[in-house]
């Protein structure tokens, strides 16, 4: 059986598991979709929350039946490689994530007209946060471009969150994780890392208090740099950067997940 057929089989199995049983994922997803979608129609900016929520909770939502019925252990005895399982679940999650986010984008676009039609231009002008953001760019971005940029930012952020939640899912899925911390040398290394991190935070905090690092000015500079990047080429440069960085983060997390899941003991 070649790679793609194998992956599709796993995806099919997961899809069945998702939609069967009590409180299945499909119902939860539809509920989330309609509640958030309705809110987005009235307040366009709410649509930005959807990718973030889905990114954070998708993994557990999609694979909750496995956890409920402890069927995840079977994956380890059936002739499926762990690498293929990770690959297929990442693939399935991201395809569904993209398919779920896209409608929110169109609802955000539509809501501009709906609110104007229902409540008038004056009310729309007062609640139009995206419009106010474009004012800050001095007209370099139109409202639609600003909306595209914000949506891509939310989509990228949600994609990174999703990779994290998938990694957590695989690292905590029915396996004993005692092997990770039972080794004393690993424990010591972990504590050393924590000490170094705490010391670094303390030093940086001290520099901020003393005034050597001016957080306000640093913040101003980075927001200035970002707003200039956003204004360049209608915002598409910054959008491409965000998508690319998100893709890199996802690939990195995928590799880490494969490595850790491969070595997990039953």
């Amino acid at each position, binding site marked *: 059986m070649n790679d793609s057929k194998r992956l599709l089989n796993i995806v099919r199995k997961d899809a069945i598991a998702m939609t069967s049983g009590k409180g299945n994922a499909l119902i939860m997803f539809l509920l989330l979709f309609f509640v958030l979608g309705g809110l987005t129609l009235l307040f366009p900016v709410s649509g930005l929350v959807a990718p973030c929520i889905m990114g954070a909770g998708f993994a557990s939502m999609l694979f909750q039946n496995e956890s409920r019925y402890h069927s995840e252990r079977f994956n380890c005895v059936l002739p499926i490689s762990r690498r293929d399982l990770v690959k297929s679940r990442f693939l399935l999650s991201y395809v569904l994530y993209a398919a779920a986010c896209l409608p929110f984008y169109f609802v955000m676009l539509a809501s501009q007209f709906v609110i104007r039609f229902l409540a008038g231009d004056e009310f729309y002008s007062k609640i139009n946060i995206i*419009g106010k953001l474009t004012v800050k760019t*001095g*007209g370099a971005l139109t409202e639609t471009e600003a909306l595209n940029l914000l949506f891509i930012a939310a989509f990228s952020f949600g994609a990174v969150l999703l990779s994290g939640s998938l990694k957590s899912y695989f690292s905590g899925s029915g396996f004993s994780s005692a092997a990770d911390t039972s080794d004393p040398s690993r424990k010591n290394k972990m504590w050393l890392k924590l000490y170094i991190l705490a010391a670094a935070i303390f030093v940086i905090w001290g520099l901020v208090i003393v005034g050597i690092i001016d957080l306000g000015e640093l913040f101003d500079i980075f927001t200035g740099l970002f707003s*200039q990047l956003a204004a360049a080429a209608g915002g598409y*440069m910054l959008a491409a*950067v965000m998508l690319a960085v998100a893709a*890199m983060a996802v690939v*990195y997390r995928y590799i880490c997940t494969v490595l850790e899941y491969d070595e997990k003991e039953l």
Partner: protein
Amino acid sequence: MNRIMKRFSAALCTGAVLSSLTSFAVRAGATADTVLPSGMTVAEVEHELDFNEGDVTNGSGNKYGATAVGIFRGDDVLLEGYYAKSDIENDIPTSMDTVFEWGSISATLVWVSAMQLWEQGKLDLDRDVREYLPDGFFQRLSYDDPITMLDLMNHQGGWQETTRPLFVVDGEEIPPLKAALQDIEPEQVFRPSTVTAYSGYGAAVAGYVVECVSGTDYCEYVHRNILEPLGMEHTAINADHSDNEWVQEQRKKEKCYEFLAVEYIDLGNQLYYCPVYPCCSAAGTMSDLMTYAQALADKDSPLFGSSDTWKEMFTGTSFYGDSDIPSIAHGFLCDEHSVRTFGHSGDTEMSHADMILDLDSGTGLVLMTNQQGDTVNNFAAETPELVFGKLSPDKYTSDTAEKAKLSGYYLNARGIHKGMLKFTDYLGAVNAGRIGEPLDIGNGVYQINRKLPTLVNTEIRLDESSELYGAETLSDGTALLRRPTEDRIQHRYYLAELGLLTLYFLAAAAGAFLILTKHRLKKHGRLEKSFCSSMMTVGYAAGIISAVTLLTAYIIFSRSGNVLPEAAQLTAGRLQLLCVLLCAFSAVTAVAAVIREKKRIVYYIANTAYNGIVIGAVLFFEMYR
């Protein structure tokens, strides 16, 4: 009863006087109905200014710092108003004694001085200024073409913005003018007499030319020939204002404010000294500036021996396209409101100032505030249009005017075009198709009508405005959009160059992820150790260091008031060169690996592409300079 009524009236009058202590406007009663060029009366304008001032006292909190406004026509002062507080904490209202900085309006003193010398036959505006300056004065010229006084007045000397410190903090460390000019000399990036890019350096050089031609220290020359004849006793022009003790003492007391979100930030007195003082150091009271403006607006100006000189000074020297619509007149910037105006504005770390003149009616406006920027508060943003009106969409156009289509990306001429901060240019490009709705009014002139979104309280308002652009093509085929203070220059390959910059930053991010991935693989024992693999990691690290170095240089540049100290430039430049070498070595290693091993070709090619992008970006954007 009479005594009670008298006491009551006295109390009422006292209350009225006390309640107006935060602002006052002096106006002669007969001038209230005087109609200004905008069509509004003085009374209506005063009402608008009082309305802005009212925001301060109507519970909105202190929104404005000190603002002084003066409107005149000929010798008559139509309105002289002092608004809000010069010191919010100590509750000191703005007054006739409040001192503001002129900023770039100081350069007009240079232009007036130059015209005086021209009138006396001592200065030829069309002669190369190097003939007046000491030998070897300029060290960074790229073109042999002459740089005339007219070029300096038109800001066409060809210099880019300097990245060297324009201001010093310590008043004891101010070098002489000649040394200061040679110290901050920027690169010449355009051929003289071609591209307009406002240059404070150019204006300061012109001031030094006045010094050389007159044989007198520039400060002394201006005092003797401009300030003293006009009776301007509350103005100083020297770098540390030591030429007027009263101004020097007052200036130390003045404060500067920045309005951020919902509160006022006290920035202290923002006292900096500019060694190249002719371009920006003048400071004084608003009434002194108004006296100067009145002298400029007077056809029989006491500044010149003959009215012909005055006429010559306000004759255009730079024009829009092939038309006779001037953009600059001997250093004075021409603006199109409902009438044509001449003037200048100025900004320093401490304040903003405007001086605008309608020469036909003799009406003038001076405005000074202790906040930076021309839209920093409603006074600065709205008053010029209240007095002079807006350029109406049909002033130069008719029903037969054709709609034009502008396209392409244009970069601002005033910026940094050579050196390690060259990349900042690319972040401020303008898409010509987005400028507005251009109308072709002939002779290479376009009137662009725009609806710019602005935030008024919490609502978005579309502000209609019109602006003129002149379209020109340079001898090398580069398209130009001419504006008074800076042209916009077309970049044919802008998107490709911007793409390279984007890929550079992305490559740095990819390098970080690749290093993290390699670390993980090594931790899980999945990484084959090899020289080639190590070299590739070195290449990734070099890409990251290059991007971090560039961002650090930019942060230092922004934080230091658009100045990059020499030490920072040297360090950053050398680091970038080192990164280029490391990336080149990594790329060569990868190519050698492809030839030798003939496996994992895609991986090695990707690595070579990564290094190629970093090297290409560093060289193209001159990050090593």
